[in-house]
């Protein structure tokens, strides 16, 4: 398996190699890896890559999966346009 060709985070195009390099550098939490690689910063907020990264951390550090915290999922969970948010509310047209 070529680590360079395996995409772990589809939103931000982060490869398995980049994730493993980050863990080797000493970033052993999902939150840290998110910040150094951008994995989990895209529209799906790490719903797919979070677990895969946790599994890599577990395998490389020997820490059990149950002890690895996943990234914080932030609102607005689904991804909503500004227009959808403002629709129906009165627009104050003063600046």
């Amino acid at each position: 398996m070529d680590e360079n060709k395996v995409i772990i985070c589809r939103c931000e195009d982060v490869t398995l190699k980049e994730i493993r390099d980050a863990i080797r550098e000493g970033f052993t939490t999902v939150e840290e890896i998110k910040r150094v690689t951008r994995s989990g910063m895209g529209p799906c907020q790490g719903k797919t890559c979070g677990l895969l990264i946790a599994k890599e951390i577990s395998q490389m550090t020997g820490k059990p999966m149950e002890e690895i915290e996943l990234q914080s999922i932030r609102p607005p969970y689904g991804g909503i346009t500004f227009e959808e948010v403002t629709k129906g509310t009165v627009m104050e047209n003063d600046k």
Partner: protein
Amino acid sequence: MKNKANVVIIGGGVVGCSIAYNLAKKGVKDVVLLEKSYLSSGATGRCGAGVRQQWGTKQNCLLASESMHIFEHFEDILQIKRDIELKQKGYLLLAYSDKELEQFKKNIVVQHSLNIPSILLTPKEAKEIVSDLNIEKLVGAAYCAKDGHANPFQVTLGYAEAAQRLGVEINKFTEVKDIITKNNTALGVQTNKGFIECKKVVVAAGGWTQNIVKMAGLDLPIYSERHEILVTESVKNVLDPMLMSFSYNIYCQQEPNGSFIMGYGPENEPPSYNMESSWEFLETMSKKATWLLPPLKNIRVIRQWAGLYNISPDRQPIVSQINQLEGLYVACGFSGHGFMLAPAVGILMADIVTGDQLTYNVILDLERFNRGEIIEEPSVV
């Protein structure tokens, strides 16, 4: 973890890491930095990361432009390989009244005295820089093409890496629980992983600084306040500068990866350590953003979060030794501009801790409040 140090720094945000690097660079041995979570987990990793030199006081202009110089040559100065993604596509400050514009004119005079290349623009000229900008009600603008943005995680990690290379010990996931003192002198810090005896303690704990100083029995005139922020999906590049307005109360910029990042100063927000997101923020932000840049209405918000501003009586930093306790120092009260000043603040604090003459001619000591010397900075968000 060492159990004896010369200097212990509490806080692994951009300020603590910059101080650690600058102390080590001055040749101070046995510096230990303690961070309760991971590096940049506090305000630093939650900030807008805008870097601007357009200030109204001479000392802020000086600290910001010296910091910008360091951001511009980051890899060379620190001798590391880390791309901090510095983007210098300007800050466009929007004026919605003649009074605001007059203030910008005065600020520009101060900025020019330090060679900051800022200029005044008409609304039409502002629109030439940002074609999507709604210029209704706009009176004029100030612009500095050399202002911009840098990646806060990479800057912090860069300082940490360079500090470690110079011998600093960095302990992540290590929380300070107490500061031990005797006869008004700091003797060491108690952490969740053991005691470290030390001569000097530098508190750079962002929004938690007042709590830590309290461990040594002292009160600081600072408090923390929630500030919310959001990021959108990434789209093609359409906005070069950071857009900012003091009176309309907004900042908004497009990051190098294409997502917009934006926030505003909350009104009537009580002092707290609350870092929850609110629906009200999302709604108000959506209205503000689409009024300012109408085409944004179709873009998706993907994430919102919050962080703490640490605020001092004049909303300007306190970079100081604490007279009541020998060996205690603080760097706090940065409001919304601690990221952009961190490079210069690290140099200043290293001067203070080593007792050297200050590299920059500025007054940021705590005693200024007792002397009644409030810093009157007109351009603060």
